[in-house]
């Protein structure tokens, strides 16, 4: 476009005349394009979900804040690497978020083999009676339920946090932790069963 090894050539370039053009702010941006992803929009759209995920996998609130902050910072640093042809923003971001939690020791790295075994075992058994569950849950405070999630094994709390904290669908959960959508669905169901069993054991 312009080519000057020496500053003296500026004068020639500067004599070009430009016609008035639209201001930057007048261009609508497609929210799915990398150009539309700025640090501000990333935080605005995803900070709450990233924190909900972090709160579920962390041991306590301070660690949750640290994981969420680290995850968002990594996301911002890698904004230029997001490629919409390879998947959604959610899948891309929560792979980063999951890695941040793993680095903090709150997400297991040996997940794949286990999930495949879970898939092979088939679906979970029938759930307990919903009315009983509703009554039991009514006695639990938010803090107690969150603490129960945090006591799950890393692989279980990860899928629970991705599904119910980050509000990801099964395809995005699978993309975040390297599973097929169906395997992710089974993993979430098994983790819920495990949490339910854990709560029942603690109530007895």
């Amino acid at each position, binding site marked *: *476009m312009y080519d000057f090894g020496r500053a003296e050539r500026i004068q020639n*370039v*500067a004599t070009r005349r430009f016609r008035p053009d639209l201001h930057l702010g007048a261009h609508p941006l497609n929210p799915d394009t990398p*150009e539309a992803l700025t640090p501000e929009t990333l935080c605005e759209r995803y900070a709450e979900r990233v924190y909900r995920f972090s709160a579920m996998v962390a041991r306590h609130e301070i660690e949750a*804040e640290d994981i969420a902050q680290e995850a968002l910072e990594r996301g911002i640093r890698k904004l230029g690497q997001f490629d919409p042809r390879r998947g959604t923003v959610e899948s891309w971001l929560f792979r980063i978020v999951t890695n*941040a939690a793993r680095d903090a020791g709150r997400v297991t790295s040996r997940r794949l083999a286990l999930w495949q075994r879970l898939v092979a075992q088939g679906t979970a058994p029938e759930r307990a009676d919903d009315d009983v569950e509703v009554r039991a*849950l009514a006695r*639990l405070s*938010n803090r107690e339920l969150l603490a129960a999630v945090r006591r799950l094994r890393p692989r279980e709390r990860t899928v629970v946090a991705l599904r119910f904290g980050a509000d990801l669908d099964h395809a995005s959960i699978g993309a975040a932790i390297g599973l097929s959508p169906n395997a992710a669905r089974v993993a979430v169901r098994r983790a819920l069963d495990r949490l*339910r069993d854990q709560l029942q054991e603690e109530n007895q």
Partner: protein
Amino acid sequence: MNDDLRSPLARRLATLEIPVPPELVPRVMAARRPAARVGGVRLVPRLSAAVALVVLAFGAASYFAPRFSQALADAPLLGNATGPLLRSVGLAGLDGRITTFSGAAVSSGYRVELIGGYADAIRTIVLLRVQPADRSVLLSNGTGVTLTDQFGRRLELKGGVADEQTGQEVLEFEPITGPAASLGARLTLQAATLTAFAATRDGLQGDWELHATIALDESRALTPPGLGRLGTMTVMFTRVTATATALEVQLHVQGGGPGALSRVIPDALKGHPAFSMHLWAPDGTPAQALTTRVDDALGLVDTVWVRSAAGVYRLVVSDEGMGTIERTIDIS
């Protein structure tokens, strides 16, 4: 997809109230653009915050390390710079990466405003506006404008573009390096001459001094491609740098003899250079070249292109009549 939300436990988890700490996002934004920082969850965040507070208490220290306060003050939009100027430096549509400024200086009846800026490991760009817009611009062959950081290091002016009808200008300087690159740069722009494009008036002397604070955008050094041969010349790719907005490729040519890089092929017009470099974006379109610097004596070529998207770029280096080298550069 929502079949696992049927159970009361799942519904309770999905609606579990987990308030987001109000300081989370400000902390993230304050720490943004740390290109060289390696990740890792901080083990003692409260201690870090305390240390940061102590550091910030020292005014002099904060003057030389302005990154955090500046980052918080970034404004997302740059409504004053028109598209052609920004396109000429590959920044059109990247308003989120441009830091807006509001400094102005008045001298000799002319107001020079510092509208915005952008900096990364390849270049430093400032956006200006001269008022009244009467075909006077702040370029003056590059001799009347200086840009220095808070440590007194002067950044060399590389070039610029001006719209004499609106008084808007884009000036490109060499990249910020040294401590200012990691701490954030507190820049001072000084100008002494306005050049008149109208033939009836000479350059106007004055004293315009403007200040701005800017942090470097992210960048990444990539592994250079392998060397290749073009006739008797050996082409070694010595540096490849990718930033959020641009891609820089530097190469060193040996064995071509004097004038090898500036050889011109006659074509009944003005002729065209025999040696050329072209880059194709991942979607197959030619990448927009921003600057090319050739040092024939040292055999160095340094070219910067607009980086349009992540993916695999195709680089072609040719010496007409001698051969072609093709390499790929993966920026994913």
